[in-house]
């Protein structure tokens, strides 16, 4: 199949529209763009297989490799950040096996193609969907929660009972007391998820925003860039000359894509891994930097010191792209602001020192530059990077100013010389210098951080240091370069997934901006408004207020000693100032909890707290899933949904692959299971029916506005446009999605399903989750942030630049106004060991964790990796069972002794089900996961909560513990 080429689409042509993506809200205003995509090429012709038969023993194997039909499939709701197209081979009515479709084409001849993708998990989903954990019939709990006593019930009984109990909650407490949890990205772009979203919106329930709640929020990126999407296609890695894997572990987590890094080595690139342990990604590295855990910022800052001292920096880039030349008042150590300079001036205008004119000038592109903060073009300005200057303020007084650069250099020179960071990081100063020089010398250097970058208490400081290095060396915004965490493809047609929209007034208000072309800053403002249109609640905040975690997280030993107050103080201030939103409000309590695919009692920190304090608050717990999870075991109802190959779907698209992957229905749903689209449609319908039957109409909805329950189904189906009981209904939705998505090469649902992998052909509008601000070109690899670098579009930050100084009062109190290294609170713990980990190669969260085909390729039960140095004194041998414990909790696991483990670490990879541990005490039991109060900050340009951005981040790494042999 050749990639469909379309006229180059540019975001500059956009009028308005911010698609919700997988978010629950859409603002389909209008788009002037035509669907400029020609029809997809026909599928590859079938060829008759050669007739080969030997009439002997060998024919058995020939017969074994035959099938009846092939259907394109993928793993839509596995929450895997890859997307791979599979051919599902169907034989005798059973999805028998799968093999990668492998039809991707390289955008240019000098990069390897993207084939075949896939991993061992995708390669056995056919067997997982028929495995013991599959749920096939609606079930009702008849014992205690978690006891495992179930009664099989009909859909009719289950739906009626659930509907009635939800109506009861709505009547008594309002629908905000119904908590809907889709997890994070345990969602797709199509009908497999749209039913959930439409149900949630129609019922105006509280929606858990788990993005930060799973530790997937790169807060340091948001603090620096005002956004975090920063990835491109995986083949772009091949163009790097210096690949630094820093915190991530792509050999485990990027199985379909990591070959580009290894192939880049054959192109001459150097591959460096920075990690405390010799993880699997070090196997193919040229250099491994064995850093002490949680000292990454100290390493980054020492490298910055070296680069600056040895003049290895890209000065033009720094002047144009960063806040380093911005002026800082020496008296207050805050930015010099327009409001300082002019009476009634703007608080969001900041200054450069123009050497040509010898005066302070408003920095073009800053939020308050008076022109909408759109462009950072310097024109004739010659900003000073460094210097002591005097400026006259509005009140006539003069104040000394210098630059952010000067502040930073002072700090680096006094605290982060390599010899100083050697003490912190354990890395030889010579090695730090070597690394800094190599990175600076590389034409294109990148830091692959991935999501692991977000799971430490001070992850944001790691990220600020990493971005600083990429900025000093002029790498961010170039191919094969810059910090890489993640990014998504948008599709304008995803508006159809949701039902919400901006009001006409809101749309009209935007038109003037839209006519000029919306900037990242404008989009950010739209997204902020959208986030306030629903009961979105960041998970950590929810758990603090409603989940029973306050007592734990307020503990003294979990506070940052640098902060003058503890978490509760900041939480109060943030809620009082409406920086952070919490639903239901503090004076009400959650009553019902509906979750799809997520597994809170596995994933939430110290989940025993939730089990003991949150669960009892709930009158109703409903799990909607294809498999039995630990949390499902604690639910009142199990609604079985179709497995991935049994329904139509669109996998969410991260930018690693320039295709959108669809999943066709290979077989009918097993047993009584139904597609998610149908299940949630039926539930909305039943609620509306029961409301009519019970004579209930208006209840309290979002923000206590009236909600007519009898209209829930009407809302869900967009006024009857959809009929979720019609087996072809999902295709109708997909038609709408693809017809309205000019950025992809399919015009209808059927066409997309037939293609399996739908090429991206151009950019889409930015959406709540998609915005890496680079136009996609089908003839090139894709990399983030081109608009900022190539077109000098302003970054959506206060300064319009990559901003390393944050003069928010909380950050100044914490000593984090500049990038620094800080020890996490648990550095002082009495316990000698630290629990670390990361995603494993063996599962996508808990899915596949209990699959025996894969368990047979592991130890068959939960394991932890320990260093021989820690095992010998404790009398622990390979294969022994140990108890991992602290004051909070404990779990038991089999020991794998590995020389790769740094002494002092207990490495336990992600997502064993608690039911795989003795007493169901899972690996989260000893994990307090304290989080940074600073993440509750708002009221400062780009420091604010918005849906999927800027919420407090779950930081499970580094939990202190001891281990002992279980006799």
């Amino acid at each position, binding site marked *: 199949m050749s990639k469909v080429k379309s006229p180059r689409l540019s975001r500059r042509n956009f009028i308005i529209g911010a698609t919700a993506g997988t978010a629950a809200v859409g603002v389909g205003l209008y788009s002037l763009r035509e669907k400029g995509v020609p029809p997809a090429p026909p599928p590859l012709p079938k060829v008759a297989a050669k007739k080969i038969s030997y009439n002997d023993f060998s024919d058995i194997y020939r017969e074994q490799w035959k099938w009846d039909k092939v259907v394109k499939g993928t793993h839509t709701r596995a929450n895997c950040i890859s997307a791979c197209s599979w051919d599902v081979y169907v034989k005798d009515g059973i999805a028998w096996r799968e093999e990668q479709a492998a039809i991707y084409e390289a955008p240019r001849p000098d990069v390897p193609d993207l084939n075949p993708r896939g991993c*061992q998990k995708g390669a056995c989903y056919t067997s997982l969907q028929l495995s013991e954990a599959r749920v096939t019939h609606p079930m009702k709990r008849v014992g205690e929660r978690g*006891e495992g006593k179930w009664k099989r019930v009909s859909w009719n009984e289950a739906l009626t009972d659930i509907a009635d109990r939800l109506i009861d909650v709505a009547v008594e407490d309002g629908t905000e007391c119904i908590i809907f949890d889709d997890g994070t990205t345990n969602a797709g772009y199509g009908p497999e998820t749209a039913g959930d979203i439409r149900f949630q919106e129609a019922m105006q329930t509280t929606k858990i925003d788990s993005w930060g709640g799973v530790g997937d929020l790169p807060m340091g990126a948001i603090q620096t860039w005002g956004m975090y999407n920063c990835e491109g296609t995986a083949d772009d890695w091949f163009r790097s000359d210096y690949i630094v894997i820093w915190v991530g572990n792509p050999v485990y987590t990027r199985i379909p894509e990591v070959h580009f890094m290894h*192939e880049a080595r054959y192109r001459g690139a150097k591959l460096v891994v920075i990690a405390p342990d*010799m993880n699997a990604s070090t196997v193919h590295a040229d250099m491994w930097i064995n850093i002490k855990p949680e000292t990454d910022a100290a390493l980054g800052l020492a490298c910055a010191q070296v680069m600056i001292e040895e003049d290895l920096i890209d000065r033009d880039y720094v002047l144009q792209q960063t806040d380093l030349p911005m002026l800082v008042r020496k008296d207050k150590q805050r930015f010099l602001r327009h409001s300082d300079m002019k009476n009634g001036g703007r608080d969001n205008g900041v200054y450069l020192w123009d050497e040509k004119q010898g005066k302070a000038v408003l920095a073009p592109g800053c939020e308050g530059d008076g022109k909408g903060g759109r462009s950072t073009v310097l024109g004739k300005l010659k900003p000073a990077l460094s210097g002591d200057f005097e400026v006259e303020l509005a009140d006539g007084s003069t104040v000394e100013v210098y630059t952010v650069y000067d502040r930073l250099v002072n700090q680096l020179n006094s605290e982060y010389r390599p010899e100083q960071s050697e003490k912190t990081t354990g890395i030889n100063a010579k090695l730090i210098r070597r690394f800094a020089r190599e990175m600076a010398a590389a034409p294109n250097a990148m830091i692959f951080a991935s999501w692991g970058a977000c799971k430490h208490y001070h992850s944001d400081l790691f990220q600020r240091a990493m971005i600083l290095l990429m900025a000093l060396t002029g790498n961010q915004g170039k191919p094969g370069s810059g910090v890489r965490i993640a990014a998504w493809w948008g599709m304008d047609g995803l508006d159809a997934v949701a039902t919400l929209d901006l009001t006409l007034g809101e749309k009209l208000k935007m038109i003037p901006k839209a006519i000029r072309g919306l900037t990242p800053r404008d989009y950010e403002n739209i997204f902020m408004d959208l986030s306030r249109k629903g009961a979105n609640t960041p998970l950590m905040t929810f758990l603090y207020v409603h989940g029973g975690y306050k007592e734990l997280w307020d503990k003294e030993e979990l506070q940052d000693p640098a902060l003058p107050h503890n978490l509760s103080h900041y939480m109060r201030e943030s809620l009082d100032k409406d920086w952070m939103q919490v639903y239901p409000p503090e004076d009400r309590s959650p009553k019902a909890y509906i979750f799809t695919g997520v597994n809170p009692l596995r994933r939430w920190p110290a989940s025993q707290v939730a089990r003991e304090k949150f669960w009892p608050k709930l009158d109703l717990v409903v799990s909607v899933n294809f498999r039995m999870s630990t949390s499902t075991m604690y639910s009142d109802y199990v609604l079985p949904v179709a497995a991935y190959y049994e329904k139509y779907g669109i996998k969410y698209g991260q930018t690693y692959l320039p295709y959108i992957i669809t999943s066709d229905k290979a077989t009918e749903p097993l047993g009584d299971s139904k597609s998610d689209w149908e299940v949630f449609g039926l539930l909305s319908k039943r609620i509306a029916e029961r409301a009519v039957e019970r004579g209930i109409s208006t209840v309290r909805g979002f923000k206590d506005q009236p909600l007519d329950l009898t209209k829930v189904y009407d809302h869900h189906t967009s006024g009857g446009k959809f009929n979720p009981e019609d087996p072809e209904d999902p295709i109708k939705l997909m038609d709408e999605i693809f017809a309205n998505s000019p950025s992809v090469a399919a015009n209808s649902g059927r066409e997309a399903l037939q293609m399996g992998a739908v090429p991206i052909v151009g950019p889409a509008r930015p959406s709540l989750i998609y915005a890496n601000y680079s136009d996609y070109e089908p003839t090139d690899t894709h990399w983030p942030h081109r608009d900022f670098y190539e077109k000098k579009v302003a970054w959506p930050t206060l300064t319009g630049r990559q901003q390393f100084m944050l003069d928010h009062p909380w950050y100044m109190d914490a000593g984090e106004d500049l990038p620094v290294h800080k020890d996490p609170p648990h550095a002082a713990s009495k316990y000698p060991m630290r629990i670390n980990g990361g995603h494993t190669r063996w599962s996508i969260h808990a899915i596949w964790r209990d699959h025996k085909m894969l368990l047979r*390729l592991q*130890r068959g039960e939960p394991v932890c990796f320990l260093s021989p140095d820690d095992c010998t004194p404790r009398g622990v041998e390979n294969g022994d069972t140990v108890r991992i414990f602290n004051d909070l909790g404990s779990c038991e696991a089999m020991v794998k002794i*590995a020389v790769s483990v740094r002494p002092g670490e207990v490495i336990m990879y992600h997502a064993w089900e608690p039911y795989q541990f003795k007493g169901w005490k899972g690996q989260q039991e000893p994990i307090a996961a304290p989080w940074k109060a600073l993440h509750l900050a708002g009221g400062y340009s780009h420091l604010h909560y918005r849906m999927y951005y800027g919420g407090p981040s779950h930081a499970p790494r580094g939990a202190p513990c001891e281990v002992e042999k279980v006799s």
Partner: protein
Amino acid sequence: MANSKRQMAMVMDLNKCIGCQTCTVACKTLWTREEGMEAMHWNTVNTMPGAGTPKNWEDMGGGFTDAGAQLGEMPTTKAFGEAWNYNHKEVFYGGKGQSAHLEIQGEKPDWGPNWDEDEGAGEFPNGYFFYLPRICNHCTHPACKEACPRQAIEKREQDGIVVVNEERCRGYRFCMEACPYKKIYFNHQKKVSQKCIFCFPRLEQGVANACARQCPGRVRFVGYRDDQDAPIYKLVDKWKVAIPLHPEYGTDPNVFYVPPFGAARFDADGDLDEETPRIPDEYLISLFGKDVLSSLEILKAERARVQQGEKSELMDLLIAYKWKDMFGGFDTDPQTLKWT
């Protein structure tokens, strides 16, 4: 020994293998899902150094020595790793709450096909490990075939693939003892030996082996050994970087490996020691023989050339810009086949 007219071969690039086991699973779901085959993994990937699959196979003997053909030790079922089963039903529906957790039923194993995954050897921070995928080597002098008293093992004339004729096999298992790579399993249901068939039904239709075509790391090259235009010949014979595992076993394997180069070591001060390789030469020699050193030299020299901006045929081959080029013409997309 009967000579095949042509010989299929495979090259596996150990500098690209990520130990993900997709090959293992691809093979498993295609060929070994029947009763009696539960514990079989015709394709295995082990972390090296390690005891591997079956446990301590390198110490088991077999193959050909100066004293001629030898039967080695019989690899036990436990040494391969058994097909563990679990109590899902009891945990989910048994009404036992937290008193029952998911566990292997029966005797607890102390070995499995990937038991020592990511453990490695040496000492922190200078430990080392890498991944070694293995299939049947489809040897030019197959010890299994030679040892079978029933001529139940055939080396196919057209492509040199070594297959067990399950109709002739009487389950004597001399082949399992004779194979020095211990890549033959015993089907206790059918009472016959079974092993990797190099996906001959796929190759017959022009489709590359499942383990190779499904490898996300793009590790495996497939093709006729003598196809001078294809990568196998170039890597093995022209560039001499792909070498067999344990050549001293005397069977002339047709699976070849591009040997691994590890990250730089640390010296006593924690700076880099670029003189001493992280993976000791002696260890690599113990696996691949002395040719491993020249192979690594060639790889390093070519890499240095591209770092200077020069072109290298070898590096381009290993990059495999076009994935299909890895398969020596066996690049038919299987889903396009229509069975009649």
